[in-house]
C-alpha cells in the first residue's frame, strides 16, 4: 500500500508509527452500516469523513449533541446586556441630550440596537464556537499524506480508527473493518514529514506585517505624549480656511490695511437716513421728549405689539409685569441662595414700577432701551425703532396700572 504514500522518503515512512486504520467506502449507507458496527464494538477514538453531512450518522456513531447552543445563548444574552448598558450609559448618563422630546433613556427606541447586538454576538459566537469546538483551524493531519483521502471532500466516504484507541488491536480492528467490506482498507502512519514549525516564509511575512501595522500606532502614541509648536496637520480643510477677509483683520489691498471698510464720507446707506431726532433718539432739541413721535400710532394694535415685544425682550429679566422678577432674575437669586452663583457678579434687574421711572420722559425710556443702562445691553440693534416705541408705550401702561393699585 505504500505506493499510495506521498513522495517522502521511504526511511521516514518506516520510522513513523501507525496512526490508525482507514477504510474507504463508495456510498454513504455502506459507511453508515460500518459506523454502527464500530460504535457497537465500543471504540472511542474513531471518526468518519464524508464530503457532505450524512443524515443519521450522529446516531450511527453515537455522537452526543454539541453544547454549542448554550454558548450561543450566553453570547446572545451578553449582546443584549451590552446593548442596554451602552445605550443607557451613553444617552442617559454620560451625555444626556434632549432629542425630539424623547426621554433620555427611551427603551422603545433602544429595541432595534438591542436586537442587532444580540444577533451579532450570537452569530459571531456560532461560527467561532463551531470552529473552536471542532479544533479548527488544523493545518496538518496524518490523513493528508494519503492521496486517496483527498476524495473525502469529493465523492468517497472514509472511516478511521486511531491506533491510540484503548480497544485498538491491529489484527482485530482490521478484521472488524474487513467485515464491513470497504473498497480499500489502508494503514495511516503518523505524520513525520510535515514540520511542526511554521514555514519560515509565513513567519517572516507575519513579522513584516506586524511591524508595518505597528507604525501608525507608534506615531499616534508619540503624538499623544509629545509637545509640539507646529500647527496640527490639517489634511481635510472642511470650512476652516476660507478665502475671505474677516472684520478687524488686515487687508493689504487698502492703504489703511482695514479689511472692514468704513462708509464713504458724506454718504448714507439706503434706508439708513435718520433725520428725525424725536423718532430715532427720543430727544427734542436735546431734551428727552415727553410725547410720542408722530410716526407712532397710539392705537390698541401698537399696544398689543408692545406687549408682545416686551414679553420677548424685557420680561425674561424684568418680569411680565416689569417688577424685576423675570425668570433669569429668579434663577440667579436661586443660584445665589444656594451658593452656586458666587463670582457671577449678578446685578438684579431694575423694578420698572418705581416712581423715578414712572416720571421719566418717554424719550428717556426709549433711549435706555436703545443704548442700554448700566448692566442692561443696548437693544437698538435688535429691536426696530417702531417696536421700541411700542414697548415704551406698553411699559407706560404697566406703570400706570401698578401705580393705580
Amino acid at each position, binding site marked *: 500500500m505504500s505506493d499510495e504514500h506521498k513522495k517522502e522518503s521511504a526511511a521516514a515512512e518506516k520510522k513513523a508509527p501507525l496512526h490508525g486504520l482507514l477504510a474507504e467506502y463508495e456510498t454513504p449507507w455502506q459507511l453508515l452500516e460500518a459506523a454502527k458496527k464500530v460504535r457497537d464494538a465500543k471504540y472511542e477514538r474513531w471518526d468518519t469523513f464524508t464530503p457532505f453531512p450524512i*443524515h*443519521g450518522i450522529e446516531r450511527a456513531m453515537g455522537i452526543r449533541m454539541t453544547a454549542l447552543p448554550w454558548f450561543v445563548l450566553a453570547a446572545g444574552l451578553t449582546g443584549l446586556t451590552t446593548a442596554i448598558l451602552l445605550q443607557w450609559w451613553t444617552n442617559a448618563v454620560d451625555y444626556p441630550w434632549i432629542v425630539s422630546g424623547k426621554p433620555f433613556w427611551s427603551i*422603545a427606541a433602544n429595541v432595534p440596537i438591542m436586537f442587532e447586538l444580540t444577533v451579532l454576538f450570537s452569530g459571531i459566537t456560532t461560527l467561532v464556537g463551531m470552529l473552536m469546538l471542532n479544533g479548527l483551524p488544523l493545518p496538518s493531519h496524518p490523513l493528508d499524506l494519503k492521496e486517496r483521502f483527498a476524495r473525502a471532500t469529493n465523492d468517497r466516504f472514509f472511516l478511521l480508527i486511531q491506533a491510540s484507541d484503548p480497544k485498538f488491536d491491529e489484527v482485530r480492528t482490521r478484521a472488524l473493518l474487513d467485515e464491513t467490506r470497504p473498497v480499500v482498507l489502508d494503514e495511516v502512519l503518523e505524520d513525520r514529514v510535515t514540520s511542526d514549525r511554521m514555514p519560515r516564509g509565513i513567519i517572516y511575512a507575519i513579522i513584516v506585517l506586524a511591524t508595518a501595522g505597528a507604525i501608525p500606532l507608534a506615531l499616534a502614541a508619540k503624538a499623544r505624549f509629545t509637545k509640539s509648536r507646529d500647527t496640527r496637520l490639517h489634511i481635510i480643510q472642511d470650512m476652516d480656511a476660507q478665502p475671505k477677509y474677516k472684520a478687524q483683520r488686515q487687508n493689504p489691498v487698502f492703504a489703511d490695511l482695514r479689511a472692514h471698510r468704513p462708509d464713504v464720507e458724506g454718504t448714507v446707506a439706503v434706508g439708513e437716513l435718520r433725520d428725525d431726532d424725536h423718532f430715532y433718539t427720543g430727544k427734542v432739541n436735546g431734551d428727552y421728549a415727553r410725547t410720542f413721535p408722530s410716526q407712532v400710532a397710539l392705537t390698541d394694535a401698537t399696544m398689543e405689539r408692545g406687549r408682545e415685544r416686551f414679553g420677548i425682550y424685557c420680561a425674561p429679566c424684568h418680569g411680565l409685569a416689569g417688577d424685576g422678577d423675570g425668570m433669569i432674575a429668579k434663577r440667579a437669586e436661586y443660584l445665589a441662595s444656594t451658593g452656586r452663583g458666587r463670582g457671577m457678579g449678578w446685578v438684579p434687574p431694575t423694578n420698572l414700577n418705581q416712581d423715578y421711572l414712572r416720571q421719566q420722559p418717554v424719550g428717556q425710556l426709549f433711549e435706555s432701551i436703545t443704548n442700554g443702562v448700566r448692566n442692561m445691553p443696548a437693544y437698538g440693534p435688535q429691536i426696530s425703532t417702531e417696536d421700541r416705541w411700542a414697548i415704551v408705550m406698553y411699559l407706560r401702561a404697566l406703570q400706570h396700572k401698578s401705580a393705580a393699585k
Partner: protein
Amino acid sequence: MTSKDKDRTPHSSSASPKGEGSESDVHVLGDEIRPGPAVSSLATKAAGVAVLGLGASVVLGMLENDGFRRFSYAYLTAYMWGLAIGLGALFWVTLQHLVNAKWSIVLRRVGEILAGTAPVLGVLALPIVIPAFLGHDILYPWANHDRVHADHLLHHKAPYLNPTFFLIRFVVYFAFFTLLGRFFLKQSLAQDKSGGVEIAKRMQRVAGPAMILFGLALTFCAIDLLMSLEPSWFSTIFGVYYFASCVLAANSCLALAAMWLHKQGRLTRSITVEHLHDLGKMMFAFTVFWAYIGFSQFMLIWYANVPEETFWYKERFAGDWATVSTALLVLHFVVPFFGMLSRHVKRHKKALAFWAFWSLAVVYLDMYWLVMPAFGAEGLPFGPIEIGALVGIAGAVMAAAAFGARKVKNLIPVKDPRLPASLAFENI
C-alpha cells in the same frame, strides 16, 4: 433534510413499518383514524358549555342594566378570539395547499375541520353585526346616524363605515370563508374516496387566488370589527397584527387538538412528535412575529407622536391599562419566547400543551387589550360576564369543530399522495 433514517425509533409508535398506509383505506400504520364516540360526546358537551356560558353572560349582562353595553364588549372580545382560531385554521389549510406541504398532511384534516367552523362563527357574529346594522352605537360609534353628523371624521368615513355597507361586507367575508372551508373539506373528503393527484393539484390551484382574497377579507374583517371600535384611529398594519394572532391561535389549537386525539387513542401513530415539534415552531415563530408587528406599530406611533394616532395608545397606557399593556409585552412575548426557545420543550407533549394553552390565553389578553379600552370604564372590567362569554365562545367553536369532525369518516386524508412523506416526516 427530509431524508429518513430508520435507525431512529419514532418516540411513541412501535417498530411497525411506516408508509404502507398509502394503499389502505382505514388503517394507516394500524392506527385508529376514525372520529369515534369521543368526538360525538365532545360535541354535545361543548355545545352544552357554549349554551351555559353564553346564557350566563347574557343574563349577567342584562343585570348590568346598561343596555347590554358591557356584554357587547365582553362578547366582542371573546368572539374575536374565537374568530382568530377559525380564520387562522383556514389560513393554515390554504397555506399547506399553496406551498404543497408534505409534512402536514396528517394534520390537514384536523385543520380542515377547524376551518369548517366559519359558518358557525358567522352566526356567532350576529349579536355584533345586527345592532350595528340597526343603527345602535352600542359598540360602533359610526353606526349612529346622529353621531356621524356631529363628527367631521365620522362623516368623512361614512361611505365606508355605515351600517348597510358593513352588513354587506360581513356577508361577503363570511360567505367567502364558508365557501373556502367547504371547498377544501369537500375536495379532501372526495380524495379519501378516489385518491389521486388530480384533486391535490386542484386544491393547490385554488389556494393561490384564495389566499389573495383571504388576505383582503381578513384585513378588512379586522378593520371593521376591531379597528372601527375607535373610528378616528387608524393604522395600516392593523390587518397584519390581527393575522399574527390568528396564526398563533390556530397552530396552538391544532397542537391541542392533536394531543386530545392522542388521548382518545386516535392518530397516535400518524401524528408524531415531529409534527407537534413543527407546530411548536410555528407557535414560537408567530409569537415572535406578533411581537415584531406589535412593536412596529407601537414604536412608529410613539416615535412620530402625531396626536391623531397616539391617543389610542394613550388610553392603553393610562391607569390600570398600563399594567395590561406591560403584561401583554411580558406574557405575550418575553415569557413564551424563552419558554418555547428550546427544542426539547417543543418535543415534550406536556410542555407543548402548556404553551399552547398559554398562547391561546395571551391571544385573548391581546383581544381584551384591543377591545376593552373603547368601553371606557374605570379600571379593568373583567368579571363573570367576560368569563362567561369566553367560555361560551370557546365551547361554541369546539362544538362546531366536533360536529364537523363527526361527519367525516377519517381524521386524516388517507389517499393523499403525500401522506407517506408526512407519516415518515422527521425534523432536522
